């Protein structure tokens, strides 16, 4: 019984793959699948699909530390990312398109992060929210022995949002930039006209 419990507790040790990735960065082979060109190229269809993907980014409920609170605030009444169609925080990675890494990733969490990223169906996007996720932040000091210095060493990151923690506006800006990256067109559209009744 004790043995069984111990082995259960040891599941997420700093896996070999994570160690390699954080030392050397991720290899292209690790990323294949998500960004492979399709067999048939249909430009118009791609354009439409990309526009759709950009405007319905469903984030995963995956808060790690301080920035998670600002991520929650983003979904709340004041800032309300539902205006851009991304308030549907899905608890299951299978149904989400966007992983907002909101907080510090350490060696114990790194394999979990990888698993979650790989459980998300393609196309998937990652936003590194906050200094810890961008580069290790205030923990990138001599005494640090556990924090992974930047989540981009483990998984490919699309948009970086620095700050400690960033204001919710910065996260919205990050989502808008991600939309621009996906669809090539910046939301909101048209740029500076308020919709009536808002």
């Amino acid at each position, binding site marked *: 019984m004790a043995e069984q419990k111990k082995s259960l507790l040891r599941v997420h040790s700093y896996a070999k793959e994570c160690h390699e990735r954080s030392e050397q960065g991720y290899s292209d082979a690790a990323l294949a699948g998500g960004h492979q060109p399709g067999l048939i190229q249909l430009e118009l269809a791609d354009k*439409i*699909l990309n*526009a*759709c*993907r950009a*405007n*319905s980014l469903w984030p995963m409920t995956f808060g790690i530390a301080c920035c998670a609170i600002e991520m929650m605030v983003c979904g*709340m*009444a*004041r800032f*309300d990312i*539902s*205006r*851009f*169609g991304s*308030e549907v925080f*899905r*608890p*299951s990675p*299978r*149904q989400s*398109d966007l992983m907002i890494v909101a907080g510090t990733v350490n060696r114990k969490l790194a394999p979990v992060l990888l698993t979650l990223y790989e*459980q998300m*169906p*393609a*196309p998937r996007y990652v936003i590194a929210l906050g200094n810890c996720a961008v580069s290790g932040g205030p923990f990138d000091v001599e005494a640090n022995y556990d924090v992974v210095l930047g989540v981009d060493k483990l998984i490919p990151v699309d948009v970086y949002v620095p700050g400690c923690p960033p204001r919710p506006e910065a996260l919205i800006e990050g989502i808008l930039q991600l939309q621009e990256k996906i669809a090539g067109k910046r*939301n*909101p*559209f048209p740029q500076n006209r308020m*919709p009536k*009744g*808002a």
Partner: protein
Amino acid sequence: MQTLNSYAPEIIRIVMAVVGGAVVVFGNALVMGYMERKLAGHFQRRTGPMEVGFHGLLQLVIDGIKLMSKQLVIPAKADKPLFMLAPIISFAPVFLPLLVIPFSDRIQGFDLDVGLLFVLAIASINVLAVLVAGWASNNKYSMFGAFRAVAQNVAYEIPMLLSLLAIVFMTNTFSLRGIVEAQTVWFIVLQPVAFIIYLICMVAETNRAPFDLAEAESELTAGFHTEYSGMSFSLFMMAEYTNMFIVSCIATVFFLGGTSGIPLPYFEYTGIIWFLLKVYLFMFFLVWIRWTYPRTRFDQLMNLCWKYLLPISLVNLLITVVVVKL
């Protein structure tokens, strides 16, 4: 030649019914999805979808297309055939109950003598789909969700049927049109207790909050559809919305007089406007309570059913029988 002629109008009717059913299912999912997100927004004092199309009108269309274009993940240790089958089992039968629902005096697939039984029978296939989905996913959370859904649906079908039976005793017919026609006074006035019981059972049958134990987000991540992605997930969602539509239709037929309402001049199909209005009133209610109440616990849910709803609906049925038959 003779036979073909006699069959031709029937074929047209079938085609029309199928097309109509598809329109209702997909249209309802879009309208309901939009309504839910927008209403949720305003219940919480925010705007909801806003930037995608005028006031976010295109949001649901875009979500649908996105879900279709997502990768379909099948977990390595899942039971593949069953895993693929579950969303289809859930989604395919939702067309059938729409056939017997009298949307107006003229719009009805066919008037079945046992319309009510037909609807309830088909509606319970959904729970099979949930069970299959939970089992095939090979995920403990899904499994929990599936078991809860089965227990819940089996339990709540009883008071639901009993409350509706009270009305069947009054009208002496199972035919939905017959029931609509029998209502000189809306049955909500004559049978308020049955109405309230039906209302509660309706929420439980569709697995909506506060009885959404099958997909209890904070306990079981996403419940029975934890492992489903992309299109199969959206099939589940569409089935859920259509089931909501169907139970609301039944409520309208049984308690709010179906198509009755102030007739509009020069319009033969005026009934459908009233009908849909009432249906969406129920849908609004479902959304309203979802964004107001917390979730109940599983044993409390069962308590509510066996200790309160079942005895009260039985008593209600007895009283109805005594009053009607004496």
